[in-house]
Structures are given as C-alpha cells and as structure tokens.
C-alpha cells in the first residue's frame, strides 16, 4: 500500500516523457500552421525596410502577428487617450495590415490559385468513393459471410490474394487501360480504380460474421426480399463496421497521391495533394503560401479524426490482428 506515492511519481515521469515525445511528433504539424500564419512583411516606424518573419534567422516559433497586433493595439489606446489622432490612425493601420498579412496567403491561395476547386474536387471524389465502397463492399461482404453458394470461397480468396500485390504493379496496365477507355485526365480515372479496392470486402466480411443468423431467417420468414433484408436488417447492424471502413476509405482517397499525379493534367481537375505538388514545383510560392496550402489540406483530416476517433481505433483493430 505504501507503494502508492512511488507509483504516482512513476506515472508522472512517464507522462512527462510521453509529453516530450508527443511535442516532437506534433511539431511538424504545428510548424505548418505557424508558418502559414507567420507575418511576411512588417515595417514599424523605426525600421529602415520591411522584414519578413517567415525567412528569419533565428526562426520565429509562433506567428509574430499576435504580439505585434497587441503592441499596436496598446499604442493606439495610449494615443487615443492622449488625443493624438495621427498616431492613433497609424497604429490602427498597422493592426489592419497585420491581420490582412497574417491571413493573406489563404486569400491568395483561393483567389490566384485553384485551391478552392482542388478542395472541392478532393471532397467530392472522396465522398463518392466512400459512399460507393460502403454500398458495394457491404453487399459483397454480406453474401461472402452469410450465404452459401458455389464458388464463394474461390471468389473470396482470389479477391483477397490481390491485397498482397503492391499497387505499383498495376500502375502501367491501368494507365494504358484508362487511356483506351478515354478516361485520362478525368475524375473517373480516380474514382473507378478506387472503387475496386478490395480491403473493404475483407473488413465487411469479417464484420458480417457477427450478425446472428436468426435475425436473417426471421426476416426471411416475414417474407422480406433479399434486398430488403440487407437494407433494413443487415446494414443497420453493420453500422460500426461501416463507420470504420468509411473513415479509412475517405482518408485513403483524400491522401491518395501517386495515381492522381499520373492521370490528372488539368489544373482545374486536380485534387489537393496534386495541386500542392504543382504549387511547390512552380517555385514561385513562398513557404508561407505553401504551408497555407498544406494547412488547407490538413484541416479536414484532422477534423474527421477528432470527430470519429473511436472508429479509427475500431477500424485498425478490426482489420488487424484481432478478428
């Protein structure tokens, strides 16, 4: 019993140690946001020329606009009290400049570049594929788990065995095929191959096993058609599995990169990762602008992750070691 204080102490040490590691591993993400909001041009009265805190040595660890904004705000208040209208106006101007410069790169991204379109394309492709996969794979997973029919095991094993083949193997034939189908440089070139991913079949089949046969038989006795049974009995029961599969599909499609850079050539059709690459390749963009683009691409996944965290864990453990 008198072990307790020591136990607590150990836990505290572990907590602190893990915190250090967590900070290190989250630093790059922090740096994306910090740089994207960094003040890139600032000139106060006592400076000869404007400075950029983006390219500064030593680097500024947080957006400099924040302290400078409050500094000018304080000065403006002081000037207001002293009745110095020109001084006050100057500080108000500086405050406006700081705000518009801090968020300026986001405005540039959406105005000058097609980031708005890329964002929309990414969302729409990810949603279409996710919805499609959920429907198609749960249908397949359901019959593979719950129905007995000739060829069932053959079909399953043929599908599953291709999971071990690295995607690069099909890159070239797929490229030729998409070209022959006349789908090059269209969103179909992304959607169709993504819809044929097989991981979901495996996951849904595992999940469907847990649905009790009695429920299916009861539905059958009630005279429900196969489709109706699937739609009103099976799918509602499979919700946790669907959530996990949906999240992983969304994430995979959202982050997919190699195939999109091969088949997309028109800037308007780009997804966010492809757009970011061309932005970086153009070499005109400042790091502030690049990091702003990165932030735009990172935010949706971070939001999805925070909202659906438990399904991430579920999906990983379902697909992983434990059945």
């Amino acid at each position, binding site marked *: 019993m008198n072990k307790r204080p020591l136990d607590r102490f150990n*836990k505290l040490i572990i907590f602190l140690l*893990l915190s250090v590691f*967590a900070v290190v*591993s989250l630093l*790059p993400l922090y*740096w*994306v946001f910090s740089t994207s909001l960094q003040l890139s041009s600032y000139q106060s009265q006592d400076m000869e020329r404007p400075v950029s805190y983006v390219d500064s*040595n030593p680097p500024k660890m947080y957006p400099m606009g924040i302290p400078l904004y409050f500094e000018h705000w304080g000065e403006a208040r002081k000037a207001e009290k002293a009745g110095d209208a020109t001084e006050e106006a100057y500080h108000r101007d500086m405050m406006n400049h700081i705000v518009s410069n801090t968020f300026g790169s986001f405005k540039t991204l959406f105005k000058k570049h097609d980031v708005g379109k890329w964002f929309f394309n990414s969302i729409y492709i990810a949603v279409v594929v996710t919805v499609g996969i959920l429907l198609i794979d749960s*249908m*397949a997973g*359901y*019959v593979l788990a719950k*129905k007995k*029919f*000739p060829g*069932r*095991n053959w079909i399953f094993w043929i599908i*599953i065995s*291709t*999971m071990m*083949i*690295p*995607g*690069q*193997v*099909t*890159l*070239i034939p797929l490229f*030729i*095929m998409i070209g022959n189908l006349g789908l090059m440089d269209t969103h179909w070139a992304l959607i169709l*191959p*993504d819809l*044929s*991913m097989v*991981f979901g*079949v495996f996951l849904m089949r595992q999940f469907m096993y847990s649905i009790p046969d009695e429920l299916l038989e009861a539905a059958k006795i009630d005279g429900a058609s*196969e489709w109706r049974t699937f739609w009103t009995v099976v799918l509602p029961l499979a919700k946790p599995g669907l959530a996990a599969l949906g999240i*992983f599909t969304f*994430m*995979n*499609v959202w*982050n*997919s*990169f*190699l195939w999109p850079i*091969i088949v997309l050539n028109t800037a308007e059709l780009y997804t966010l*990762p492809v757009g970011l690459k061309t932005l970086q390749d153009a070499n005109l963009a400042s790091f502030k602008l690049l*990091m702003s683009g*990165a932030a735009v691409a*990172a935010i949706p*996944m*971070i939001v999805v*992750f925070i909202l659906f965290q438990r399904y*991430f*864990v579920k*999906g*990983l453990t379902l697909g*992983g*070691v*434990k059945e």
Partner: protein
Amino acid sequence: MPASLLGGVQMTQMPIGAVPKKEEEKLKVMKRPNKNIIKDMKKNYSAYLFLLPKLILFTLFIAIPVVWAFFISFQKYKIFGSEFVGLDNYIEVFQSDAFRIALKNTLLFTIVTVPFGVISALVLASLIFELGKISQTLFRSAFYLPTVTSMVIIAMVWRWMYNYDFGLFNYVLGWFGAGPINWLGQSSTALWALIIMQCLIPFGVGIILYLASMGAISQSLYEAARMDGAGKFKQWLYITIPQLKPTTLYLVLLSTIGSFQVFTQIIMMTGGGPGNATETLVHLIYKTGFRDFEFGLAGAQSVVLFVIILIFSVIQFRVLRHDE
C-alpha cells in the same frame, strides 16, 4: 489505383493467416456432387447479384491489370503496337546502375526505419499503457494524428524544416555550434535526412495495435510472474513482449511493405537527387514509366519490386514465427 496500397495508410496487407483453417472446413462442406452445382447457383442467384458490382470492378481494374502487368514486362512498348522481347526488360533491370542504386537506397531506408518504427511503437505503447484512461486517449491521438495527415503535407513541411538558410534543423544545430548542413542538397546527407524524418514520424498504427493487444493479455500471467517476484521490467520482457509477438510480426510485415513503396517523400523533397542519392524503387518505376514512357521496362521493375516484397514477407514470416 487502390490508394491504400500506395498511400501512407498501410491497412491493406492483412494477416490472413488466421482465417484459412476455418475456411478450409467450410470448403469441405461446399464440395458437393457436380450436378447439384447448377441447381445451387440458380437457387442462390441473388448472392451473385450482390457480388456483381464488386466483381466487375475487381475484374476490370485489378485482376486484368495484374495479369496484363506481367505481359507488359515481356514487351517493348511503342506508340505503334508493342513487340515481344522475352526477358530483355528483366536483363536491363538487373544490369542497370539506376536500379541497383534504387534497390540499395530502398533497402537502407527499410532496414533502418522499420526496426526503429516498430520498436519505438512498442516502447511508446508500453509507456502509454501504464497511464490512466484519459491520458491514454490523449497520447494515442497525439501519436496517431501525424498518420492521418497526408504524406504530401508532411513532406512539404519537412522540406521547409530542412531548409538551409531558415530551416528549424539548422537553427537547432546552431545551438550546439554545429552546422549549418545542406540536408537535402548534398548526396552524403540527403538519404539520411529522409531516414531521420521517417523515424521521427510516429508509427501511429503500431501504437494503436500494440495498445489493443496489450489490453488483451491475460492478467493472470502477470499475477503469476509477480508471485515469482518478477519486477515490472522483467514482466515486460518475459510476458508482454512474447505475448505481443503476432502483433509485432504483423507490424513488421506492414511497415516493410510500406517502406519498400516509399515514394511521396522522394518526389516532394528530392526528386531522387542529388544525382541519384535518394532514388528509390517506386520513384524509379514512376520515372521510367511516366517520364520516359518505357512501359515495358517499368513493368519489369514493378514485377521485380513485387517479388522482392514477397520474398521479404515470406522470410520475415518464417523467422518471426519459428522461434516461438
């Protein structure tokens, strides 16, 4: 292209070893005399209808391309049709310096990052497991968050952090009076810069799976060890680690396969350079296929990549299974 096979989330390669036994039994049940098959198929026509959409997509965009890939690797692809050249492409693959260097770089990358990633995931998960529920959730999220972020974004920010003049790394080196180092710009450091980067991205999948498996280890094992007077560290060494072996095997396979396919960092940060200091297999395939349009050669390269991954998987499976 199955994004999951290419992208950062290495979810697709499943340990299917656990399923076959059960399946085999079912297979036996399924085997009936031939004449009944047609009847059976008719009776179950709705099952085929349910499978149809996936089967069509799978056949068109996976099965046919996989088979086709092997054919392409034996051909010289030209604008006006193609020509069968036998093993020429494969001979070229093995004779070319570019492939040898890419293979060497990929192997080095894998040999350093895979053990580091798996071991650090094990250590981090073990530490996290000691804490209370809320802290567990907190740290699990913190370490998993970089995994849900696109590698494109991570590569962009690391390129910025490795920047010669204004990057964070050279600034930190400055504290110790060292550097600045032209991390990505010189062939002596570029590959190591990418390796360091990979090591510092936490292996989120690994941490989550280890945590889940640790929760499933029977407490009675620990109690028995405690009665024998084993301390915390000994319990970890002699109970936790052996009990986690299936998870470890899975994670090693998973990250090896992922690591052999390293691509996004390369194209975003170095383009394989300087020279070919950071050329990797998949980046080479990409360049051969879609910059030089040597489809046959790129096809042969990707088949070789597949075989290498297969060999590695089998070896790891054997080694990690056998000393049980």
